[in-house]
């Protein structure tokens, strides 16, 4: 259950892929497994602003509702609308097709490396 090295992580179990001024956000396999079968993903609207550690969405499984915390300040420029029809993609491919949103960020907080996140989750 390797956490890819090219990604960065948060203690809220999100991964972040930085590409220029854009950050792609998803949840880690650890989080997806903990949630169980995901049935619905509620993502912020494109154009809405995000603030570091503010709730910006929800991920619902058959047994609980997980909150999506914005990992950084910025503006949502894209949301993964394919999850509307196939929310289980987040379970199947959390680091790939199951990405959630893209943020054009204005500032970046400190993020964890894969090794640090491994240590955090006790992997």
């Amino acid at each position, binding site marked *: 259950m390797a956490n890819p090295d090219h990604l960065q992580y948060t203690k809220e179990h999100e991964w972040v892929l930085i590409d220029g001024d854009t950050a792609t956000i998803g949840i880690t396999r650890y989080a997806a497994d903990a949630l169980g*079968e995901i*049935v*619905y993903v*509620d993502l912020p609207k494109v154009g809405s602003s995000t603030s570091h550690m503010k709730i910006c969405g929800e991920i*619902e*499984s*058959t*047994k*609980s*509702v997980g909150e999506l915390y914005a990992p950084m300040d910025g503006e949502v420029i894209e949301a993964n609308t394919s999850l509307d029809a196939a*929310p*289980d993609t987040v379970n199947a491919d959390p680091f790939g097709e199951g990405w959630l949103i893209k943020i054009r960020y204005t500032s970046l907080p400190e993020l964890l490396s894969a090794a640090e996140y491994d240590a955090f989750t006790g992997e």
Partner: protein
Amino acid sequence: MLLDHHQFRQRHIGPNRQEQQEMLDYVGAESLADLMEKALPEAIHYRGGSTLPEPLSEDEALDRLREIAGKNRITQSFIGLGYYGTRTPGVIKRNVLENPSWYTAYTPYQPEISQGRLEAIINFQTVVTDLTGMKTANASMLDESTAVVEAMMIAKRSADSESNVFFVDSDIYPQTKQLLEHRAEPLGIVIQYFDAAKIEELNQECFGAVIQYPGASGRIIDFDNLFAKVHEFGGLAIATADLMALTVLKPPGEAGADVVCGTTQRFGVPMGFGGPHAGYLAVRDRLERTMPGRLVGVSVDAEGAPAYRLTLQTREQHIRREKATSNICTAQVLLAVMAGMYAVYHGPKDLKAIAMEIHSKAAALANVLGEVGIKIQHESFFDTIRLVDVDAKKFFDAARHKDLTLLMVDESTIGISVDESTSWAHLAELANVFGARVPKPEDATDRLRNHRTSGYLEHPVFNSYHSETAMLRYLKKLADFDYALDRGMIPLGSCTMKLNSVTEMEAVTWPEFANLHPFAPREDVTGYLELIDELVSWLSDITGYEAISLQPNAGSQGELAGLLAIRGYHRSRGDFQRNVCVIPSSAHGTNAASAVLAGMEVVVVACDEDGNVDVADLKIKITEAGDTLAALMITYPSTHGVFEEAVVEICDLVHAAGGQVYIDGANTNAVVGYAKFGEFGGDVSHLNLHKTFCIPHGGGGPGVGPVVAREHLRPFLPGHSLAQVDLGSYGPVSAAPFGSPSILPISWAYIQMMGPSGLMDATAVAVLSANYVAKKLSDAFPLLYTGKNGMVAHEAVIDIRPLQKDAGISNDDVAKRLVDYGFHAPTMSFPVAGTLMIEPTESEPKPELDRFISAMLAIRAEAQKVEDGEWPRDNNPLVNAPHTANHLTSEWDHPYSREEAVFPTDAQRKSKYWPPVRRIDGAFGDRNLTCTCPPIESFAKS
């Protein structure tokens, strides 16, 4: 010598005296009294006397109830305002309302053994969506006014507008106005009344607006432009609508409404002096996940066959806790089933005919009154006319002399609502009161507007069961799908599935209790008020509290009423800053949700490894809260099923810091007669009459959740301006002044027939049975929590996590395998994930307790075979449970026999409950949301 069985307690309590002694010997107690000494903390043990009446026999209690009922006066009601006379089809009354297969079932958390009532509820949801023109309806609400509040809350969280303003039609029912105002205030919502016929009065940004359709005055407005304007302001458009009227009027869903709500009372559910009835709530597409309460959806079972289940449960307060935006955690299932079946039995054509007959009578009456110069306020109406510029008192009194009760709106306005129970003879008498001629069918003209053009209820289920024979068999078929108390034990922890005796139920359907309007004149309800007074004084004796309101129509509403009382109390003393509610991590999620809706901020206090409130952490949280501490909310005995020793100290700590103590009475069955919340530190509690005091669960409602409090909180208990007696000036939490009075005779009869010592015996045997089962199972399943002397209270939590770890067997697998053994599962994963909580209650006979124990031990042995590798982890009788007849006759590729699958004990060869579906796929239904009757073709064998 008096025959023992003349005493009702011998009928109510399952184990007889000899069996009780055997159980006492086994758990190591000499007597019931000794058992309670060993289990109950000394500090809370109440040893004073009781003022409860000595027990009456069943016959004597019924005689007394008849005497009380005889003091009610039944007249023909024309009051309206959301409550109407209706004809309950006899086939529904006898086979649903009076049938234990329906009324003793629990909320369908175990869908495989609840397919009957799940189908009945999906019928109800389909009735609501079809008639309102909406996408999705839930499994019912507590009443119309609370449904409007919930609709407002949906708008608050879903609207684009950030405004705090909510527009309310000034022609909305008065009880709904009161409730909206009371519930809006703690949440900072501003209620703005407007005339819904004047669109220009909708003049500022708002998060929503609600209209009454038709209005309290009978008015039918055009809502298309109104809804469009609400949307322009960024708000949600809400209609609270009469379903009977919607059979002939354009539904709000066809004009862009976002939420439609109301009541289904007049679909065959008697008025009952206010309840219980099923409210309803429906939403447009994409608002499903904002809906409160239960929602039944279609999923598939392990064979891919369609199967019903509760869906989107993650929306609910018990999961979302302090993030919840509603505290609604139940429905009015029994009443929703009745309303849905009323539509099934009549079908769309007859429903429309009923509605048209109602309209014709109202129109004919209006026309003959017009002939004698009486002014009718609105040109168009459905069933309600308002007579203006009349001597209201004179006509009201004259009508009363003929046993006709009108609505006196003010001194010059009379309201007349016609309903299904109104006859032409009634109208002739009424016309005579006004000096008009006898109205006849040919006097009717079409006084409707916004005529409905769309069809409804086209599904075969609404077009197949119109003969009584067909209906009887349909109801029997559905009842046979389900597991209720008439089949066996339902050991659900925290639910108290005890006997709901026939004698207790008897009076519910008597016309003197069933056919009273909640706003009937005081002189008509003398019997009810007497019954309520007696019940209140008895509950006061039992709880040690002085002030009681029976108004909350569910436990959750009792919680809310109690917390609003605390809020009102603090504010009356100028302590506006006291808004922190401390809640243990073990609490039921509804506690936190109720606190949020009472305008409080939730602070969680930790529990120690024994499940008790961590007193050290509580001290920290109290200090941190300082003068913002409003309340501590605890459950007693705890949600862990243990009598916490420190409870008195905990209450003292909170009081010393200026806070109030809320004791959740969900587990009152463990203390009745032995401890009183009001004596050992509580300021306010709610009771669940549907648990401790024998009101049946009805398959997921009705409930009654009285709020009981110490004297200083009395001014802040629920009031109601339309009540027949002064309930104070604080706001209400239910539509009707006394909530759901027609089921109060059940609790009255229970207390009256048990008497003080019978109630104490019930408590002690409940504790005895829990300890007996817990000890018998403790070698096979670790017991998670115990209190003093290794005892549990009235329920026990056993740990399934070791089985999960060693054999891959989950608590779900154990729960479903219990179905094969002929049992309903205990409560799953509450209060701790991966556990089962067992509450046998005092009513289960010892042989049934022993049968349950044997089943659990046999299941443990089966799990051992998986652990030992004899059966694979992914193919064994536990993970494949429950087994259906269809499964049995299909290809068999399992390493165990068909006999082992369905006849795990020999007794089942003669008498066996067959679940109609295999294990249901939860995720499929949540991802593919369907909440109306699925097409018949989907049931064709795949």
